[in-house]
Each structure stands twice: as structure tokens, then as C-alpha cells.
């Protein structure tokens, strides 16, 4: 199956041919096919719908303009003229209006922040002075842009200062400017291309969701089985110990933005868990991990087992291990798992983790911060399942409650996030921005419900989407999305019951669903094949609405929109 390639537009006031080349040539996924607008045409490109760069209906655009070329007052500041702050910001607002207009043409619009022109270093003490200092003005201007972007669901500001810093003294080169009108060195463009691709991955559900770590010499220094937990290197007044503690803090911070942690380690489980529980400077405790496989088995097999038990896909996993042999083994056995090269120098652990660019997210929801707890509850459910033996008996004790709501501003962000992140139980895997989804759901003969799922172990939150479009006796399920966290609890059947009852109320005689295969949504096909719907042409499923689709007796459906 081919990997999707994103069509892009690059609009800049300088020659961005090298940036285009970096985007095309970078081996990072996703693939990108950009069209470069003629440079120096920023305002016409943003204003005109028929400008060439829009003709190919790009999925995303990057608008990269130097501040002195799009904000006239900033150019005046560079000439030592005094400029009132409100005038400067009003020009930023006017520029934002252009960006917003362009944002309506694409799913994602990326705007690198403004950076100071490299050759303007003579401002010295004046640089940060209000009214005259370019550095002061740039901070205000970038902040204003960030505030605007904060209110827009699909326009994202990218921090280009980091690219400039990473490129160091090769960030700018006067010869590139005077001979080619190229505003930055290639090292800046390489960083920018990586960032844009990471953003695209984050916005289209390809971010990593689970970090699996080894223990000895990865979370702490030394072999706990040999040294005892009291003697491992962790924290204290010691460079190596501090580096391990900081690495653990950074891992813990990731859990607050929805990334899960797990352990895969060759160790004695009791010894390792004792270290995690008892070491006074241990940052990560057992409850910070959604699961572990601590034994002497093959790590690749352990990873497979743990990931399956969490209902996640291997493509959402990062595996961190100090041992190059273990890294190679996992890379070879499980090529979908991302196994970053890991430095031998422990003081580089934290910065290596932070540079991975695989955890991108456009927002952090309250559920993200609690995801580890939600998965821990899932572990309790699985334990109960094992005790009860039969799935039906287990489901009866779970007391699953489904709350149904129509799409509305309060749940739009989470619904869009779910639509764009869910891979496995996803009928069509269509990806949409908040504005697109909202507009679609408001269309005639359409209904989109969000599904919240709770049971006696806790509230899993908004974890499902089902939408129906009905026309002339035929109703079609357009979206059928369910988080892997709640799969297999007959919420799927409850969603079909909901769709079926709505379709019957609209006078439809048949309910259709067309499965669109991706690399990852095989579990969805397997559900539909067992759903009771008649299968035709392999991927078209239909239900004769003269009979209602049965409501699962182990699930309670609530909500005024049910």
C-alpha cells in the first residue's frame, strides 16, 4: 500500500528553492510534494485564489516571509525610525488577516516565526528598547501572531529561532542572499523541513503514543541485579546520576501530554520493581507505566506482547535501549517500531529524547494528562476479564455506559483530534480540520454523534464518532471511529444501533458502510465482518432497515441526542 504524499505550497519573500529541495529529499515521513510560488509574491499569493500555488489543491502551505518585507513598520525600525507599538501590531493584524484567508484554502498552514536579520547587529543597547529596538518589536510581533494562531484551528506557528540556533554560524550567509536571494543557510532549511514533517505527522495521527524503555543504564546507571537498588546511579550530587534523573523527569513530562510509558527489560521483575518503588530519587514509579515486561525473554517478543495487550499498533511505539544489540534486534524483528540511535554518553539522554520530533501534538487535552490512569484502568478490566473467563460474563460486570452527543463547539477539538489520530477502528480514515468537520456535520441530511464511554472502572472520555448521511431511502455511515482504548466492549454495536435508528427515522430502507482499507485499519474490517451487516464487493456492508439493528444488552445508551 502506498504511503500518502502531502501536496504543499511554499510562499516566501525569498528564494525558497533549497527549502523545497529539503522537503522533497528528506527521508522523514510523510512524503511531501511542494509547489514553490515565485518568491517576493507573498501578498498576491495570499490574496488571490487563482494563484498558481493553489491550483493543485495543496493539503498544506508554508508561508515564510522576513519581517521587514511584510511589516513596513519593522523595516522603518531597522532604519532607526521610531514606530509606535500599536501601528506595528496593527500591521501584524493586517498580515494575519491575509494568512487567515490563505488558511481557508488548506488543511494546515504553517508560519515560521520572524527572526532578526543577521546583519542587523549594530543595535546593541537599543535592540530590546521599546519603540526603537528590532528585537523588542520582533518579540511583540511574534507574540501577536501566536495569539492569533491560538484562536485558529489550522494555522500553526513554527518556532524558527530554534532552526537558526541549530544551524549556528551557517544560519545566514551574505553570499547566498546576494547571489541567490536565499535568506537562510541550508542547515536552517533542513531543520525547517524536519519540523514541518513532524507537524504533519502530529496533525494526521502519526505521532508516537508509547515509549518503551529499558531499565539498567537506560533509566538509571548500573545493573540493579548486581548492585542492589541502593547503589544504582540516580540523582544525587553526581553528573551521571543527575542526568538519569533528568531523563526520567522528561519522560514523566511526556505522560502529561498523553504519551504512555512502558518497560521492556531483561531483569528480575521483583528486583526491578523494588528499585522503582524504593529508590528515594526515582522519578518514575510503577504507576507511571501502563505496563511492563520484565523478564529474560526476547525483547522483540515482549514488545509485541505488551503493545498488543494495550490495543496499540507497533507504528505508535518508540523503543529506547542503551544496548545497540537489543536495538538492532528490535529494528530487525519489528521494523514498524521506531528505535532511535541512543548515545553512549548518559548526559545526552535527555536532549536526545527531546530532539526526537515524534510526539508532536497541536493541543493538549485534559484527557491527555490522564491517559496513563485511563490505561491503568484498562489493565484492571483485563484482569477482571481473565478472572471471569467468558467475554460475555466480563462485559455484564463492566456496566458500560455510552453517552451520545451531537457535535458542538465544546467537543469539536477533541472530536477532530480523535478523527485524525485514530487508525485501527476507523472505517474511512478521513482526516479533517475542525472547520471542515464542523461544516460537514452541519450539512443537510447529515448527523454526527460523539460517543463518551464509561464503565465501573472509570470514564474513558470522548472515544467514538459515528456519522450518517441519508438520501433517497439510503443512509450511509460516513465515519465510524472508536479509540482502541474501548474497542471490544460492544460500544461498536451501540454505535451501529444509534446509526440504524436514525436512518430508520429518516425513512431510509438500507444502511450502508463502505470500508476503505489503510495499512492500519484491519481491526475495523474484522469488526464489520462480524457485525451482522451483509457484505458485498468485499468492502461494502449493508443492513436492511426493515429490522432495527439490535442494541447490545450489556451497554446502556444515554444522552439527549441518543
Amino acid at each position, binding site marked *: 500500500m502506498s504511503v500518502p504524499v502531502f501536496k504543499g505550497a511554499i510562499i516566501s519573500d525569498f528564494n525558497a528553492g533549497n527549502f523545497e529541495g529539503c522537503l522533497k529529499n528528506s527521508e522523514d515521513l510523510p512524503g511531501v510534494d511542494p509547489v514553490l510560488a515565485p518568491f517576493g509574491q507573498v501578498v498576491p499569493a495570499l490574496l488571490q485564489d487563482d494563484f498558481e500555488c493553489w491550483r493543485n489543491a495543496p493539503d498544506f502551505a508554508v508561508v515564510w516571509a522576513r519581517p521587514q518585507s511584510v511589516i513596513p513598520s519593522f523595516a522603518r525600525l531597522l532604519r532607526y525610525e521610531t514606530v509606535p507599538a500599536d501601528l506595528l501590531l496593527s500591521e501584524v493584524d493586517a498580515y494575519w488577516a491575509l494568512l487567515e484567508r490563505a488558511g481557508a484554502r488548506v488543511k494546515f498552514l504553517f508560519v515560521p516565526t520572524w527572526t532578526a536579520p543577521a546583519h542587523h547587529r549594530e543595535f546593541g543597547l537599543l535592540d530590546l528598547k521599546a519603540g526603537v529596538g528590532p528585537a523588542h518589536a520582533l518579540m511583540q510581533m511574534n507574540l501577536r501572531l501566536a495569539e492569533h494562531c491560538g484562536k485558529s484551528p489550522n494555522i500553526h506557528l513554527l518556532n524558527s529561532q530554534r532552526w537558526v540556533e541549530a544551524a549556528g554560524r551557517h544560519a545566514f550567509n551574505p*553570499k547566498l542572499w546576494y547571489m541567490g536571494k536565499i535568506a537562510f543557510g541550508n542547515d536552517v532549511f533542513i531543520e525547517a523541513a524536519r519540523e514541518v514533517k513532524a507537524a504533519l505527522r502530529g496533525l494526521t495521527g502519526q505521532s508516537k503514543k508509547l515509549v518503551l524503555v529499558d531499565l539498567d543504564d537506560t533509566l538509571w546507571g548500573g545493573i540493579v541485579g548486581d548492585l542492589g537498588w541502593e547503589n544504582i546511579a540516580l540523582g544525587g550530587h553526581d553528573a551521571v546520576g543527575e542526568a538519569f534523573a533528568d531523563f526520567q523527569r522528561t519522560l514523566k513530562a511526556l505522560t502529561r501530554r498523553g504519551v504512555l510509558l512502558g518497560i521492556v527489560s531483561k531483569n528480575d521483575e521483583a528486583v526491578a520493581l523494588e528499585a522503582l518503588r524504593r529508590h528515594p530519587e526515582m522519578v518514575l514509579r510503577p504507576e507511571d507505566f501502563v505496563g511492563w515486561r520484565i523478564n529474560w525473554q526476547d525483547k522483540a517478543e515482549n514488545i509485541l506482547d505488551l503493545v498488543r495487550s494495550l490495543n496499540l499498533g507497533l507504528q505508535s511505539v518508540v523503543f529506547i535501549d542503551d544496548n545497540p544489540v537489543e536495538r538492532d534486534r528490535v529494528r530487525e524483528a519489528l521494523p514498524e517500531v521506531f528505535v532511535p540511535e541512543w548515545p553512549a554518553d548518559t548526559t545526552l539522554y535527555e536532549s536526545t529524547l527531546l530532539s526526537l520530533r515524534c510526539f508532536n501534538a497541536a493541543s493538549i487535552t485534559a484527557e491527555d494528562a490522564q491517559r496513563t490512569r485511563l490505561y491503568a484502568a484498562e489493565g484492571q478490566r483485563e484482569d477482571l476479564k481473565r478472572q471471569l473467563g467468558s467475554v460475555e460474563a466480563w462485559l455484564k460486570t463492566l456496566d458500560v455506559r455510552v453517552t451520545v452527543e451531537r457535535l458542538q463547539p465544546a467537543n469539536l477539538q477533541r472530536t477532530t483530534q480523535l478523527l485524525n489520530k485514530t487508525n485501527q477502528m476507523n472505517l474511512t480514515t478521513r482526516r479533517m480540520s475542525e472547520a471542515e468537520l464542523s461544516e460537514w456535520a452541519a450539512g443537510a441530511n447529515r448527523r454526527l454523534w460523539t460517543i463518551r464511554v464509561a464503565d465501573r472502572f472509570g470514564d474513558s472520555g470522548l472515544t467514538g464518532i459515528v456519522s450518517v448521511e441519508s438520501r433517497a431511502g439510503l443512509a450511509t455511515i460516513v465515519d465510524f471511529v472508536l479509540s482502541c482504548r474501548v474497542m471490544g466492549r460492544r460500544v461498536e454495536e451501540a454505535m451501529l444501533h444509534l446509526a440504524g435508528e436514525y436512518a430508520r427515522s429518516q425513512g431510509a430502507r438500507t444502511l450502508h458502510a463502505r470500508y476503505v482499507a489503510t495499512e492500519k485499519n484491519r481491526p475495523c474490517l474484522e469488526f464489520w465482518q462480524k457485525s451482522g451487516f451483509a457484505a458485498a464487493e468485499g468492502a461494502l456492508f449493508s443492513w436492511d432497515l426493515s429490522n432495527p439493528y439490535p442494541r447490545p444488552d450489556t451497554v446502556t445508551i444515554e444522552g439527549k441526542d441518543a
Partner: protein
Amino acid sequence: MATKDKVLQVIYSGIDAVNQVSAKEARLNKEPETALMGEAGKLDSLGLVNLIVAIEQKLEEEFDVTVNLADGQAMSLKDNPFATVSTLADYIAGILEQRKP
């Protein structure tokens, strides 16, 4: 000759930098006979700028010298030094030779 070999390595690292941003069909081989400019050359104007800047930066790092490969003198020479990788290496080696104390 030792200098020319070192210069060739510098040019090859410049070619790596150019290839990093070039379309597949425009990429240059790291060989002395690779044509750069002229009828047989694959370098467009953007590629030439990239190559010049990358080589100048590398020369500064490797030899601690500042060289201007884009001055009028180089471009106006009867035998264009940018004809092939080898002619460019000869030209740069000549400049380095002149700079020797």
C-alpha cells in the same frame, strides 16, 4: 598533489550539500570528471550558488582560509574553473598555493 586530493574532498562535501537540496535528476557525481557548468553540466544558477557557498565554508573549516570563488576573476577566466570538478580543484589548489607563506 596532496593539496589537490584534499581539495577534491572539500568539493565532494560541497556536492553532498548541493545534492541534499537538488532533484534526483540534477544530482552530481563525486568524480573529478563530473561536469559542473556548460553544456554537459547539471548545475543551475541555484546549484552553483549552493556549491560555491558550501565549498567556501568547508575551505574555511579545513584550511582556515577565506576564499571568494564567486569573484569576477574566476568567472572571467578563459578556461572556466567551474567546467568540471577537476578544473575547479586545480583552481582552488592554485589559490591555496599562492596563499602559502
